[in-house]
């Protein structure tokens, strides 16, 4: 009852103070609207980009639409402008960065970035944006080039397919030629086979003709015989004895006449013989000449058969080679056939990455848990500190203090007042977030309020503890602000806690602000109920701070008494 009395009194006092009232209602409203408006931007703008290059074509590659482009002759003058805060980032392009080929712009070379690292968030956004733009451009160029190459390869493939068809035809033609050659060789072989016995016969005949001189010998013998006959005839006519010997002259004369006739006949034969020998010799020569020609024919025939065989063999070899080439060509054509222009992207970007953010909400939606926690810690700590200080430094405090009431009544009263007022403020924040920024508070309203109450309670108690410990308004508010700032800075809001040294990281990861933020993130963004670990830790903090407050109040009582 007394606590309720205390709470009602405190709320009346706060509500009746116009400054407090405006801060109470308008403050959070203004805060969330301002933050909402400020964080609603998704794109960078009013950026002054410095370019160190003589080539104005770079503008087209960058496709920079977030602000103005300023050209500089050298890096130093651009860097100077960054120092003066007139330029946000400088890009130094290497010489001849832009090349033109087949009326196409091809950028190649290096780009040096100069930026102010103290403004890391902006620098990162700018670098990321420009790299993305340049990367896309480079990729676009590479893909176009690759497409051209692949197009040419495709043309080559088509040509090679045509050539392969030609070579297939060639093989067919070669086979046809080979067949002809084989037939021709067979024909020639057949001729040769048929010719050879005749040839042998002719050769034998030639041999016989050349070696058989019987006729010449016979003619010669005949000539000798005739001569002997002639000699005999002549001698018989001169030797009468011979006539006596024969006893008949008539007979001898008749014999002579006969002999003369024979002789004449023999001479005629001999003449004919000589003529025949002459003819024979002539014929022999002719036969020899003929055989020589036949030899030649045979030689050419054999040679032709051999050459045809050689040609067939060469043709077989050529066909085999062409076939081998065709086979290789098939394999290569198959591989080349796979290189299609549509594969250019895969070749340029062999690793395809896809980023899938779990949420695709607006900035303010995503930042709402952080904004909420930040507002709660700043408002809770400062508000509870100021409310407590106002009470402690109030002229009415002495009167309240000497009332026969236990201290916890006042402390609890102030604490509950703070929690109620802050819940009211945060509720306004929730309403605006729900209605204006589409943050679905209603979906998990109980859990959100549960976490909100714990966070508010914890930071209110910290603010109160500081107020009870340091009653001087100036000192107390300064200490509260300082501690709030430490808590705020030791979180991932400015720098990721994972970047901090291990010792600080330990502290930062146990930072109640970080825990509150994590709990709000889980429930507001993901609707996950795994926030209990954070809540348990926050409750432990709540217990510790309550204990601290109890100790401070006990010391104060000891001091007074």
């Amino acid at each position, binding site marked *: 009852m007394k606590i309720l009395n205390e709470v009602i009194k405190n709320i009346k006092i706060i509500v009746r103070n116009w400054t407090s009232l405006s801060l109470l209602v308008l403050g959070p409203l203004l805060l969330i609207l301002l933050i909402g408006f400020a964080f609603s931007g998704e794109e960078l703008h009013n950026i002054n980009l410095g370019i160190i290059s003589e080539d104005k074509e770079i503008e087209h590659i960058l496709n920079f639409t977030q602000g103005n482009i300023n050209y500089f002759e050298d890096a130093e003058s651009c860097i100077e402008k960054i120092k003066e805060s007139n330029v946000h980032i400088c890009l130094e392009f290497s010489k001849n960065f832009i090349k033109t080929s087949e009326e196409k712009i091809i950028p190649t070379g290096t780009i040096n970035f100069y930026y102010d690292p103290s403004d890391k968030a902006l620098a990162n956004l700018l670098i990321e944006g420009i790299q993305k733009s340049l990367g896309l451009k480079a990729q676009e160029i590479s893909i176009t080039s690759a497409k051209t190459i692949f197009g040419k390869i495709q043309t080559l493939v088509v040509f090679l397919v045509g050539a392969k068809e030609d070579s297939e035809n060639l093989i067919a033609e070669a086979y046809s030629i080979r067949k002809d050659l084989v037939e021709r060789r067979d024909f020639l072989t057949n001729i040769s086979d048929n010719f050879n016995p005749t040839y042998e016969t002719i050769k034998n005949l030639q041999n016989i003709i050349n070696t058989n001189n019987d006729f010449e010998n016979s003619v010669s013998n005949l000539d000798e015989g005739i001569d002997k006959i002639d000699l005999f005839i002549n001698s018989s006519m001169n030797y009468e004895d011979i006539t006596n010997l024969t006893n008949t002259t008539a007979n001898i004369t008749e014999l002579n006449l006969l002999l003369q006739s024979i002789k004449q006949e023999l001479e005629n034969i001999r003449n004919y013989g000589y003529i025949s020998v002459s003819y024979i010799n002539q014929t022999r020569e002719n036969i020899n000449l003929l055989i020589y020609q036949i030899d030649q024919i045979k030689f050419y025939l054999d040679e032709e058969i051999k050459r045809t065989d050689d040609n067939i063999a060469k043709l077989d070899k050529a066909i085999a080679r062409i076939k081998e080439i065709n086979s290789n060509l098939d394999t290569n054509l198959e591989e080349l056939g796979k290189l299609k222009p549509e594969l250019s992207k895969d070749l340029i970007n062999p690793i395809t990455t896809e980023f899938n953010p779990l949420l695709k909400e607006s900035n303010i939606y995503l930042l709402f848990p952080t904004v909420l926690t930040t507002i709660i810690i700043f408002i809770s700590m400062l508000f509870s500190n100021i409310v407590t200080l106002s009470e402690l430094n109030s002229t009415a405090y002495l009167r*309240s*203090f*000497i009332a026969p009431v236990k201290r916890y009544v006042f402390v609890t009263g102030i604490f509950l007042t703070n929690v109620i007022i802050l819940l009211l403020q945060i509720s306004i924040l929730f309403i605006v977030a729900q209605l204006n920024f589409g943050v679905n508070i209603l979906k998990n309203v109980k859990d959100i309020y549960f976490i909100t109450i714990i966070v508010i309670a914890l930071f209110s108690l910290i603010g109160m503890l500081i107020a009870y410990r340091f009653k001087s308004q100036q000192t107390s508010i300064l200490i509260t602000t300082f501690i709030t700032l430490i808590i705020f800075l030791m979180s991932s809001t400015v720098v990721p806690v994972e970047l901090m040294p291990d010792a600080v990281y330990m502290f930062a990861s146990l930072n109640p602000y970080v825990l509150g933020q994590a709990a709000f993130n889980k429930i507001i963004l993901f609707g996950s109920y795994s926030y209990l670990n954070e809540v348990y830790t926050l409750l432990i903090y709540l217990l510790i701070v309550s204990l601290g407050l109890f100790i401070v109040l006990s010391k104060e009582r000891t001091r007074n008494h």
Partner: protein
Amino acid sequence: MKEIPILEFRNINKSFKDKTVLKDLDLSVYSKDILALAGKSGSGKSTLMKVMIGFYKPDSGSIIYKGKNITDNVNELRKVVGFTTQENSFYENLTLIENLRYYAKLYDIHKKDLNSYLSSILKSVELYNSKDVLAGKVSGGMKRRLDFAISLVHEPDILVLDEPTTGLDPLLVKSFWDIIKKFRDKGKTIIVTSHIFEELDENCKRICVLDKGSFTEVGEIDKIKSKYNAAKLSEAFEKIVSK
């Protein structure tokens, strides 16, 4: 028959760190008395008053209320003592009646008709017509009376008034003292401090002069003035503290 003190302080000592602020103080306060408490700055007057109202607990000594030792029961003392400060000890953003209601609940006053009771208090200090006005909006004299009224909420037997008329014009001073006397007449015991000795001389019966944490004089004002051969209390006070 010897009068029994309503409140007694026996051998009271109070130190802060090494500095002794109150030293072996003995004081008896009688019913319906208006006791003036005087002393130079730094004499221990404020500390003594805070002991009287239960803000400080003495390091040693006893506090006796109506014959009962309540030294260790500071809440008992707080219930019987009302306190009016030299500053306005109330909430300016509450109305006059809300201030009274707040303190009434703080003191566990559960009257059937609390509003009537609180209204009667406001009427007694002539503030009833402004009961719904914010305390911060009323005049200086009304604020002093409101402060006085708040100290009456829990119906204390003893009222400790610290410089109650500071900053008031003479007419308001007189009016305020009239109210004090009215409550004295109703049976309240008043302990009052003031730098304006004329007021004390005119309105108080007894005075105790505190110097360096000890009483240098305690007694009826007239007797003390005679003792120091002074026409005015201020003269007597100067003589006492310059001893």
